[in-house]
């Protein structure tokens, strides 16, 4: 059965988020040959439409309005409802991002629909689409199906590969004008705390520091390693609590959940609440001076040693590699 599926695109720091491209790939799997329509919502966003088509969208619908500059559940809810009424999709895919998590339950409720959140894999079996998602903070997984009706999911960043870019692809770009009104929540101010550049939840490489980093300055060698690898810096709660870094970097049960290709844990003991945020990473490297540290139990590779010696050596080694390649 083919389905018409819409996917919501998100923009961060002027670029499309990678998870929005992954959402198109997920939408394609659900569509089973049906049409995939990407949706761009914001103030001045139309310029991103072609990139969505290059990554597999058949068409793009653009909703622009001054009231959509900042995300609000009411504003985006009205925009998405208008798109759903115009397109009548059988599937909807959002990224499992702050925006996606906030908006998807509202939209699902408006549409009297189920919602499968935080999907990491999609498969088709006997005409039914099965969605895999982590439960128990990543310690187990479940496969879910939708009991008929609209299929609505959010996809976790970094798990469903985006389709490679093909600029030869073409597709129609249309605008939908929507009256946005009666916003009940108003964004007064946005305080930027995270660094520009690679977003932690979407980074392919994360270098994370724990209490073993010992000071704010101690994060510098980690940042250098992350820079060489094109990655981002993260932290344990131990490091955040000690004031070595901002809480926006915290990974774990009460912080961010990440699944990079490579996670390098430096001076992190590996408490269960930390593992909840990173144990599904593809490859884990642990650097810790205590050979008994729990982090070695989940690590693919471990170095027992002082991180202040090991991390700079690693940075040097990767730099050499870059020069050679």
């Amino acid at each position, binding site marked *: 059965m083919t389905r018409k599926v819409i996917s919501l695109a998100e923009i961060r720091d002027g670029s499309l988020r990678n998870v929005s491209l992954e959402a198109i790939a997920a939408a394609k799997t659900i569509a089973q040959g049906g049409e995939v329509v990407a949706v761009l919502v914001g103030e001045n966003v139309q310029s991103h439409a072609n990139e969505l088509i290059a990554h597999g969208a058949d068409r793009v619908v653009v909703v622009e309005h001054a009231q959509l500059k900042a995300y609000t559940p009411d504003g985006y809810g009205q925009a998405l409802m208008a798109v759903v009424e115009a397109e009548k999709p059988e599937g909807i895919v959002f990224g499992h991002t702050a925006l996606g998590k906030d908006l998807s339950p509202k939209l699902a409720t408006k549409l009297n629909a189920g919602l499968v959140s935080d999907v990491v894999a999609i498969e088709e079996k006997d005409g039914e689409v099965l969605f895999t998602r982590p439960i128990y903070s990543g310690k187990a997984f479940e496969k879910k199906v939708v009991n008929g009706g609209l299929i609505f999911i959010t996809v976790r960043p970094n798990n469903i590969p985006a389709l490679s870019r093909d600029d030869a692809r073409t597709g129609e770009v249309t605008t939908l004008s929507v009256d946005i009104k009666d916003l009940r929540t108003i964004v007064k101010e946005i*305080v930027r*705390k995270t660094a520009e550049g690679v977003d932690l939840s979407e980074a392919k490489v994360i270098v994370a520091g724990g209490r073993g980093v010992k000071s704010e300055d101690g994060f510098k060698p980690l940042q250098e390693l992350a820079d060489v690898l094109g990655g981002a810096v993260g932290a344990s709660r131990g490091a955040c609590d000690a004031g070595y870094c901002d809480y*926006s970097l915290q990974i774990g049960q009460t912080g961010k959940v990440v699944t990079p290709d490579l996670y390098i844990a430096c001076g992190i003991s590996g408490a269960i609440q930390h593992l909840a945020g990173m144990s599904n990473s*593809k490859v884990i490297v642990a650097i810790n001076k205590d050979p008994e540290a729990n982090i070695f139990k989940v690590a693919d590779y471990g170095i027992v040693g002082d991180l202040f010696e090991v991390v700079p050596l690693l940075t040097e080694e990767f730099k050499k590699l870059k020069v050679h390649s």
Partner: protein
Amino acid sequence: MNIFVLMKRTFDTEEKIVINNGKVNEEGAEFIINPYDEYAIEEAIQVRDKVGGEVTVVTVGNEDAEKELRTALAMGCDKAVLINIEDDVEESDQFTTAKVLAEYLKDKEPHLILAGNVAIDGGSGQVGPRVAELLGIPYVTTITKLDIDGDKATVVRDVEGDEEVIETSLPLLVTAQQGLNEPRYPSLPGIMKAKKKPLDEVELDDLDLDEDDVEAKTKTVEIFLPPKKEAGKILQGELTDQVKELVTLLRTEAKVI
């Protein structure tokens, strides 16, 4: 002020997960108040102590949740309500839970509803916003600060590490993020008092709901554990050689670089 807290009893994810007959084995496991709901309870108590009113903690579940409800009462909530759906509902999902909660809340004239931003077991983060939408009230998720002034509210919201300052008005639903407050432990006098506080139990019938009204929209068909990781490789030898070996392994064996 009429304040409600939505509380979920969760499996303590520090526990080892064992699967028997396609279900997570709950025998003998430790259960707790969902950690994010502790922040919600604490905030509710603080708001009440400032502006007056009453805090009611509500859970959808079965009798086992009475223990966690008593803990919430011992922390300082005034009343507890258990919506026991065990006999009426076999398969449930976030739609079910939200529908039941909204149906209970709709004629209670709530001014403020607090929930956790996510349950550490089910992990969807859907229930809060769904309840708000069903009740037709605004919501703000993952909040780290809440100031109430009359029927106006100023809220700080955590957005993947950045902060949004949001203005809105009551009635309002918010979901708690880490950093909102430091939840208190129940005191001994609190525990004694909690024994006398009202804990009501209601069922679907009392809410004028049929099973059909709350029928789950999604279904779990399989639960499984992640493939067991083979023991990792602890590198040996001179530190500089270990580092070289690690880089080689990441390139050729793990192929992530």
